[in-house]
């Protein structure tokens, strides 16, 4: 598991190229900045279409939208064949590339335990193209393809629990992070980058345009997501060892997270309650797993 990082330990140097092409208050831009502060120079960064298209100061390559997993695989295998295992194959993708259009290829790469590090900035829809539904879209969120009307209440399904799907592949390291908890995020990047095998970090990255909130509030939205149990911060090693990294004495009500976001404004009280019950029940399970230090299944 990652070790606590303190503020003085945060590197001063920047790893991303600025200015980027991001909107004001972009959570993903913050995720990129924090990630590449600690990633180090010895990487080949993989991109696929995603939003925002971040540039790091590291050499990069990329592939087709669905090609994240196999593209990383090809790089990692080539580096091994050429005797350059000092260079790491890393990814900086979006949620769609990770667990929607790119899910199959990435799952198979995980099953083969390819020596790659996937960093996913999860903004919960295809924000690149204007906010269409992805496997990362949460239930009831209005997206441009989950319109709200008499026949539709926004996204009809829960967000994919990607961390646990990857855990089923018994890979060395999985973690979640939030842009509102930068030390935790960077400690996880620092820890994961040197592990051998498939590792993945899922960073919740609020999108003011797609989630429809005031761009000044990105950190507040992200923080309330963690504090309400919607986006818990945890680590899973080798498919079972479990650690919850942030445990408030009491969860904040999910309304603190939902309210500022206009994508949820159509939700009825019953629907909010349903999500509250769902979130609390999950949280209990995370607490239990943390107590046992492992996922029991």
């Amino acid at each position, binding site marked *: 598991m990652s070790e606590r990082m303190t503020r003085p330990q945060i590197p001063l140097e920047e790893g991303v190229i600025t200015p980027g092409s991001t909107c004001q208050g972009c959570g993903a831009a913050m995720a990129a900045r924090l990630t590449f502060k600690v990633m180090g120079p010895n990487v080949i960064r993989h991109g696929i279409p995603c939003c925002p298209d971040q540039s790091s100061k590291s050499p990069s390559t*990329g592939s*087709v939208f669905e*090609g994240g997993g196999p593209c990383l695989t090809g790089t990692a295998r080539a580096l091994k064949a050429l005797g350059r295992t000092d260079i790491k194959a890393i990814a900086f993708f979006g949620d769609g590339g990770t667990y929607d259009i790119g899910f199959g290829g990435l799952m198979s790469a995980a099953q083969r335990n390819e020596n790659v590090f996937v960093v996913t900035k999860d903004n919960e829809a295809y924000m690149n193209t204007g906010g269409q539904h992805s496997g990362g879209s949460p239930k009831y969120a209005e997206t441009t393809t989950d319109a709200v009307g008499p026949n539709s209440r926004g996204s009809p399904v829960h967000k994919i629990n990607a961390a646990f799907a990857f855990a089923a592949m018994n890979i060395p390291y999985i973690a979640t992070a939030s842009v509102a908890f930068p030390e935790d995020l960077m400690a996880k990047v620092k820890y994961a980058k040197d592990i051998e095998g498939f590792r993945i970090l899922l960073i919740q990255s609020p999108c003011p345009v797609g989630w429809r909130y005031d761009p000044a509030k990105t950190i507040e939205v992200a923080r309330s997501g963690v504090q309400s149990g919607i986006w818990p911060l945890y680590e899973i090693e080798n498919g079972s060892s479990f650690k919850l990294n942030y445990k408030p004495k009491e969860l904040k009500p999910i309304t603190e997270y939902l309210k500022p976001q206009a994508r949820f404004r159509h939700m009825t009280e019953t629907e909010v309650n349903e999500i509250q019950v769902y979130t609390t029940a999950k949280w209990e399970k995370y607490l239990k797993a943390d107590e046992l230090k492992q996922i029991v299944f």
Partner: protein
Amino acid sequence: MVDYEVMVGNKACAVACKLARVKVAAAFPITPQTSITEYLSELYASGEMPGFEFVNAEGELSAQIIVQAAARVGARSFTCTAGPGLQFMHHPMNDTASGRTPLVMAVVHRGLKSMQPDHSDLMDQSWLGWVHLYVENAQEILDTTIMGYKIGEDARVRLPVAVGYDGYVLSYTAEPVEIPPQDMIDNWLPPYKPPRSLFYDSPEAPIGRGGGDRGGGDPNMAWKIHHGAVEAAESVIKEVTADWAKLTGRSYGNGMIQEYKTEGAEVILTAMGTVAGSASAAVDKLWKDGKKVGLVKIRSFVPFPRKDFQELAGKYSAIGVFDRSIQPGMGGPSYREIKNSLFDTGSYPVVAGFVGGLSGKEVTVNDFVKLGEKTLEFAKAKKADAHPIWV
């Protein structure tokens, strides 16, 4: 020392990978390609190829992306597929070519309407700007796979190369194959070096967003450059084939086409792939009967041997084109390309478009004898039957 072995076409392909010192291979098994993948798995397991990485990809889509990425990083890469598997690769295949990524892919022909061979699978990919070579026998598979790396990696080309050969009749048929010695190939084919290193400690490493030949302000430019690269492949194919003939003593015409008994012929037939073997036997028979019919085997479909056909046009009164595929509503692909090539020359031999051998339908020596005789009749009548003439 030159070695001989009786082997099936698919083994000849795997042996060529070993000789070319392929570093990364990824494939998904599909009949009739499967045994290449199995041979590669054995080569990996045995440790015969030091530093070789073999990936059992979860599908052809991923197989294509894996080798594309590996080749970009600088590893000589190989994949192989057939029929529907090739169609499944279509999307990333575009990236492999547009990104100017040299690698070799064996396409063991399996038609799109049955599991049996015809050329519809590879013809279906002809918009993507790969180099498409069609071969006739197991020896030619081995030779062309190795030549494919030399052609594709040439700085004037930098393109992926597809080596197409008919499933079953060639993939699973054993023939004696001459295996060139490893040191001879090592001297002839140096290790692959990508045009631009992706390693952070190299001064040429691209920083930030990668990008190929995007052509600045002109949106046409990427297409212009790609078109130019495929056209440039023609002279490189010719050079490499001549060079290979010097090295091994085995000659495949000028690389683009291979002529057989065309000297003094009245008319010619054309064929691609394994049926060219039956066609050459038919040509022997026709000459014996005093019928002057030559054969032109088309080895490269992309780029198309346009110049060669323009030169041939004035010499013969008719060309009988045999296509082992047909694009519904559009016709036989090599028939169209040949007619297209001849238009500007001002000499118009009669061009007959035969279509057959689809979905594995057998095309015999006698069939080709009849096609030769028909082509002679068309020459005399100065007119061919309407295309397609079904065989």
